[in-house]
């Protein structure tokens, strides 16, 4: 159902007639995104079953407020998106107008001394990184890619990131935030006129704003926000040049005090020990476990699938690595001075030895040597999301965040067996990887783990096999870890065959009935229920449930 002409006109008066459209061709492009073919809302196709009513491109906080107020007045639902990567960024129900925040793209302030930057929703990680690196600072880009929105990640969705080991989770890097509430009122988190913190006197609203996973568009619109920045020991510019076997671009010069160390471990216990010790010694700039040989390549991108196949699979290199490397870790050491650098390397080497780690020759000699030193940093700093899409599709299973022990206890099942079965069927990518991604935060104060693999989004059989593989994986976990309900972290992850709301309902009872608390908050903040709640709370399914 299209918007009534007078309502369309009213919106056009707010944003200007060139910044609104209800043309079917334009709307069509707001029904398609990553994982749609997986998602209950769309499967098995790529398109949502419903169109938004219109797409609006507001250019300021005032325009956003005016739109939201109008939505309240006329009972129209809205959904805000920043760069829009993932099913969660699209309307989850019919009758919604989309606020594409693309025109709000300024970096408003970089406070070098106090180490924070204030950004609008469409500032990307790459843009922020380019500006702060010049000032000796760094940020915490997420694997969603350097083209994704900083503010969306801070406020509305997740926050796990490659540099979390020294930079922390982005939920904790969110400082002062400007928030257009679902009623259209403006709320500023943190002291008036200040951005250095998201808390002021009184109870903290940061938890209400995002909690663990963010409200994913269900709690109004965030229009400005400050992000904590971190120290950058490197040069003011990272120059790259074409070349290399895998990534299209190589680091021209390796920063003086940077090194990548890649030990592997026979058991989870050894690996955890390693993570703890490196954390205690505050040694690593970035630190993760990647699920085996191929997955590491996917961090680095590929000049072409053909070349990757010929150079790494046909030669048996990957198979050799997969054979020898269990629990492969990647650690970035990045120091300010030669002395500090030598110290960090020395202590790291001691810890590797002490925890039973092995640094395999295959990683330090031959083709891998250059890849580790010149290409891996480009991939890590450059953070191109497309590096993970070389089979045309990439999906993550349930994820879990906690201490090393709790994460391994809940998640540490032999994933390679489950995945192996499907990989052998030829319907998902048989890359030789165990597919476990494990990322450390705040010097290992907590970690995050997920399983991920690659499929072909253009092939329904492959999509189906991936769904079944994920289902196997969840069931296996449920079986082995009785009482544990996976899928804690990502509302787009895991039980794809269920609607997002159903997933929330299923998880809620296992996690303190968070869904009911969210629902209370939702009703208090959004009395007219206009901020599209499809990915938040439990309201769509608990309409008749009385929540006191």
């Amino acid at each position, binding site marked *: 159902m299209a918007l009534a002409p007078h309502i369309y006109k009213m919106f056009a008066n707010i944003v200007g007639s060139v910044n609104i459209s209800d043309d079917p061709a334009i709307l069509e492009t707001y029904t398609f995104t990553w994982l749609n073919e997986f998602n209950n809302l769309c499967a098995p196709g790529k398109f949502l079953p419903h169109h938004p009513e219109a797409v609006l491109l507001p250019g300021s906080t005032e325009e956003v407020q005016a739109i939201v107020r109008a939505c309240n007045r006329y009972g129209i639902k809205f959904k805000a998106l920043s760069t829009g990567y993932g099913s969660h960024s699209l309307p989850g129900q019919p009758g919604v107008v989309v606020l594409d925040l693309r025109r709000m793209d300024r970096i408003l302030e970089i406070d070098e001394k106090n180490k924070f930057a204030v950004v609008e929703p469409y500032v990307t990680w790459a*843009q*922020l990184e380019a500006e702060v690196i010049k000032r000796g600072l760094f940020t915490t880009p997420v694997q969603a890619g350097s*083209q994704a929105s900083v503010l969306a990640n801070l406020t509305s969705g997740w926050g796990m990131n490659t540099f979390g080991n020294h930079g922390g989770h982005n939920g904790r890097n969110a400082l002062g935030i400007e928030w257009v509430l679902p009623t259209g009122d403006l709320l500023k988190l943190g002291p008036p006129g200040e951005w250095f913190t998201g808390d002021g006197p009184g109870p903290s609203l940061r938890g209400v704003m995002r909690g663990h996973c963010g409200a994913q568009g269900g709690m109004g619109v965030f229009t400005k926000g400050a992000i904590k920045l971190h120290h950058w020991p490197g040069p003011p510019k990272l120059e790259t040049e074409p070349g290399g076997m895998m990534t299209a671009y190589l680091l021209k010069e390796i920063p003086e005090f940077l090194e990548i160390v890649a030990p592997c471990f026979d058991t989870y216990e050894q690996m955890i020990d390693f993570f703890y010790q490196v954390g205690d010694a505050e040694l690593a700039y970035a630190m993760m476990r990647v699920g085996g040989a191929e997955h590491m390549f996917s961090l680095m991108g590929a000049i072409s699938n053909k070349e990757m196949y010929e150079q790494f699979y046909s030669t048996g290199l990957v198979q050799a690595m997969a054979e020898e490397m269990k629990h492969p870790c990647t650690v970035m050491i990045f120091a300010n001075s030669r002395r500090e650098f030598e110290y960090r390397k020395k202590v790291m080497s001691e810890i590797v030895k002490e925890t039973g780690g092995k640094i395999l020759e295959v990683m330090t000699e031959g083709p891998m040597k250059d890849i580790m030193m010149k290409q891996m940093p480009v991939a890590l700093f450059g953070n191109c999301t497309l590096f993970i899409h070389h089979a045309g599709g990439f999906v993550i299973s349930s994820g879990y965040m906690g201490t090393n022990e709790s994460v391994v206890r809940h998640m540490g099942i032999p994933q390679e067996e489950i995945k192996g079965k499907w990989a052998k069927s030829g319907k998902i990518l048989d890359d030789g990887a165990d597919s476990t991604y494990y990322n450390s935060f705040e010097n290992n104060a907590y970690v995050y783990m997920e399983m991920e693999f690659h499929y072909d989004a253009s092939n329904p059989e492959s999509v189906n096999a991936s769904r079944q593989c994920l289902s196997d994986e969840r069931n296996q976990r449920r079986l082995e870890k009785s009482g544990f309900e996976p899928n804690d972290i990502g509302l787009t992850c895991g039980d794809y065959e269920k609607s997002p709301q159903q997933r929330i309902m299923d998880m809620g009872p296992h996690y303190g009935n968070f869904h009911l608390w969210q629902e209370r908050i939702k009703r208090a903040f959004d009395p007219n229920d206009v901020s599209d709640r499809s990915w938040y709370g439990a309201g769509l399914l608990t309409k008749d449930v009385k929540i006191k």
Partner: protein
Amino acid sequence: MALVDYKKDMMRCVRCSTCKFIPISSLLKSWRFAQGCPAIAKHNFHAFSASGKLIMALSLLEGRIGYSPKVIEILYNCTLCGMCDLSCKVGTDQELWEVLHEFRIDAWQKGEKNRLAPHVSIVESIKSYDNVWMQPRRKRTDWAKGLKIKDLNQEKAEVLYFVGCTYSLDPEMRRVAKNTAVLFNKAGVDFGTLGANEKCCASPAFMVGDEELFVKTATENINTFNQLGVKKVVTSCAGCFGLIKSKYPRVGPEMKFEVQHSIEFLNELIKAGKLKPSKEVSMAITYHDPCHLGRMSDTRIPSHGKEYYVLGTMPIKDIPKVMGMNGIYDPPREVLRSIPGLKLLEMERRREYSWCCGSGGGVKSAYPELAMDTVKERLEEARATGAETIVSCCPWCEKNFEDGIRASDSELKVVDAVDLLIQSVE
């Protein structure tokens, strides 16, 4: 050849938005000059990005939408500059540019209502006059009056100088052809032209999707060049160069000649000591990489959806992956650096990830506002280098720069690289 061949590429788009930007943080140098795609930079709705057009194409194939004035507006509000293709290919093997082009062929073939009036008139001009400017054929030789140039309709030479419609027919641009011929003569090059018999390269037909006219003209041109027995076809127009070098091979007949842009050829002459830039030209300049001399001149072989799988589901397209890295980037810079007194200041977006001037893909004629906004952005980037002059090697870029400078009261000047070289050569 059909749009449906690329359905898998459309379905594999993840809508990540990388195609809107200069890819990966280490290529991108600032917040200000981070954009890569002129179309989305102006119009903002996702539909205008390359991903948006892929989604629309898929939707069309699935019968969810049909051709409409809006679809055509979106499709042709795109300079076909190819930046999106590079950005996406930093991490995938996906075909983007080929899809955008095939989409235009499909639209053009599906009926006259899909054809924009300015494009129809250019195509008609090529058909009737063999040039894009509706000029009589005989005028093609006006620029060469008084110059000693072989007529290859009568004589043999090693090099065919393919002048191009704009350099031979646009009174303001003829000087570039003239300066080039003067330099060739100075260097003792054995060259000639086809005079009034030169035919348009058919780039505009190719760009707007008139595949029939493109194939016909390209085939005729290849046959003519082969018959001349020349070793090289040299052109000063980046548009002609990009098309002949990178797109003619897909037409079929074997090309028995090398294709060069005149700036490459002049660079070789300087290196061989046949031209000696010695007079000082004191100026701070910046160099603009034209899309069709740069990333779009890298020879592209379309996959037409052909692929096979390895490792279960990893698609292999058995064609070279083209990321524009083999474009002509160093020769113009080397020529400029060989001129004493010139100070070359680089823009942030350069070489294969240069920002388009805004003129290509039929945009200048059909959507001048997009052409204008895009060129203003480039002028701003040029100004930020501190340069006083912007140098290019393409008539379309130069003309659009002139328009942009006039419209924005900019103090910048625009010249062709050959204008500077001739000042310096004794």
